[in-house]
């Protein structure tokens, strides 16, 4: 069951690389939130019920519902156009993300650790780097935010690997996720939307040497 969820998660990454509309990104983010809940529910057998409820809140309520709805609200409020406007063609993105996944698989072979579940590690690393790739190659600032959310999802999967032994780290990761997301989205909705109307990275090019 874990493997099915992990494979589904990897497919969402590939789909993300060729998605061209912002709404599709949001749907993928919401779906990833649900998958993360499934993963956490299966993998974390040794955590307390209270902790599990906390994780449920984080994945289902925060990742799958609150963040996508909020970003959708920002897109509508600021009249951001629907295309994601990548710098590179979608085909190239697909190749790059496939390359990222392959690299993660090769990296996992170099690690000699029998305690580690390699598939979790592979998916976590590919998610982190796909998030970075989306941040680097999309034109709109709001897509950068979504890339950051993908990166955070990768961190969440990685923290599941140690979640049973160190629940403290898992909770810290969730705190980071909520804190950083609220902070970033807060600046976005309050400030950027008011000061900069179009919200392209092109408008954030004044500070340079």
């Amino acid at each position, binding site marked *: 069951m874990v493997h099915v969820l992990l494979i589904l998660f990897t497919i969402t990454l590939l789909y993300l690389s060729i998605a061209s509309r912002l709404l599709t990104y949001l749907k993928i983010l919401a779906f990833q939130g649900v998958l993360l809940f499934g993963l956490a529910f299966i993998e974390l057998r040794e955590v307390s019920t209270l902790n599990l409820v906390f994780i449920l809140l984080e994945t289902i309520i925060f990742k799958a519902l609150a963040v996508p709805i909020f970003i959708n609200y920002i897109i509508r409020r600021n009249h951001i156009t629907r295309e994601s406007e990548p710098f590179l063609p979608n085909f190239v993105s697909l190749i790059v993300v496939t390359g990222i996944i392959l690299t993660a698989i090769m990296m996992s072979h*170099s*690690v*000699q*650790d029998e*305690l*580690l579940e390699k598939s979790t590690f592979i998916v976590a690393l590919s998610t*982190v780097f796909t998030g*970075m790739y989306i*941040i680097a190659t999309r034109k709109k*600032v709001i897509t*950068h935010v979504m890339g*950051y959310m993908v*990166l*955070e999802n990768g*961190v969440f999967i*990685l*923290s599941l*690997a*140690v979640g049973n*032994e*160190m629940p*403290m*780290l898992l909770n*810290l*990761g969730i705190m*980071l996720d909520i*804190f*950083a997301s609220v*902070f*970033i989205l807060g*600046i976005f909705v309050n*400030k*950027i939307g008011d*000061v*900069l109307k179009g919200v392209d990275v092109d408008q*954030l090019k*004044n*500070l340079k*040497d």
Partner: protein
Amino acid sequence: MSMTGIYLSIAIALGGALFLNRNQAIRRLLVVCFTLLQVGFTVYSFLHPGASGEAFFRADALGLLMLGVLTIISIPAVIHSEIYLSNPRETNRTRAIYCAALILLITAMGAACLSSHIAVTWIFVELTTLSASALIYHHRNERSLEGTWKYVFLCAISVTFIFIGILFLSLALRQTGTTDLSYEQLMLHASALDPSWLKLAFLFIFTGFTAKMGLVPMYTAGIDAKDKAPAPAGALFSSVLMNMGFVGIFRIYEVTAQTSILPWANTVMVISAILSIFVATVYMMRVTNFKRMLGYSSIEHMGLVILGLTAGGVGYYAAILHLVLHSFVKSSLFFQFNQVYQTYQSKSLPDTGFYFRYNLAGALVVLTGYFFATAIPPSGLFVSEWMIFRALFEGHHLLLLLVVMILLTTIIWAFGRSIFAMLFAAPPQEFDASRVVRIHPLHSLSQYLLLALSVVLGLFPPDSLVALIQEAVQSLPL
């Protein structure tokens, strides 16, 4: 309750009160209270080094040293903030937010340097991002928003990287049977850590902290932050905030130094350091914004510090001395910046000129600051830089030494060209000398004191400073 806990709760309470308060007299009173608290806490920590009974904090040698530097610089920072906030353009609300953010920043930096657990360090690093972003956004215009957004976003990524590193570190720790991520336990179990996980952990934690310390690859946001934040805050960003980033890197380096992957880690750090110095050189030659120029100069010095650390031997001592002295020199130059801005109403270097004519005391600070920042004797930085070069020479890194020397010479030339043009060349035709406001020479006093301190500590270091630095680096291999 432990002493650090009391300090943190009072400081945060003061910050909250400052944020809510709109009365100017009360605001000044609260800021003075905080300064006294900061000094008192520092003195207490120096009197009780390594005090027990603290859960997540320990005043070890490096933490004490950085706390001392932080407190020394935060006093002029508070004074210059007061001068800065006396501008009638500021409202009571902006003053309140500024002061609250400043106090939170100073507290978070101190706590991050003293923390004895990697997750606690990480939390306070995140807090510095929060408070720094409020300071960068102080002017509330489009440019400062851009700077804030870039800083927040890059720091969010860097903090995520540090967290990934911590996760890998906990994976490396699995075989040792402990789940305690305090630095003490990490040092204790260092030799039993899994090398391949530790490599990944080091890579991610190092990359994450480069955003705070100002090294390639994540140095960019720091430059924008120093440029857009008010200069007294910029002085903190370019000195003690960078020191905090160094502390984060140093703690994980200490652990790595006990294992077999040390040569690999050194290679990673040397690449980052040399690229930082190179980037600083390239930008120093073409930058026209005074604050950004100072920011790039800081990046050069951080590169040197990391080079000293990797060279080993006398380089360890030199690296930390260099860090301390650089903090004093660079913060005094930043404190001076507002006077330059008041004179020319611009931070662009081509708009300036004949500065000696308008502000003698300030011009002397800029001139001395330039000589000290480029490590020309009698600068204290000359001593530490010379020791770093000696460490590189003794470690047979001759090619590296040659490249660094060429780059540093270029920086001395580029930095000097801009500074001398500002001091001695004619200002542009449009400049109206009759509108220049007289600045009281006393406003430059703290800068002279900081510069003098850097000379004294560099040329005649007191025994206690030498002992502290040696204690801080004692765990590193010879």
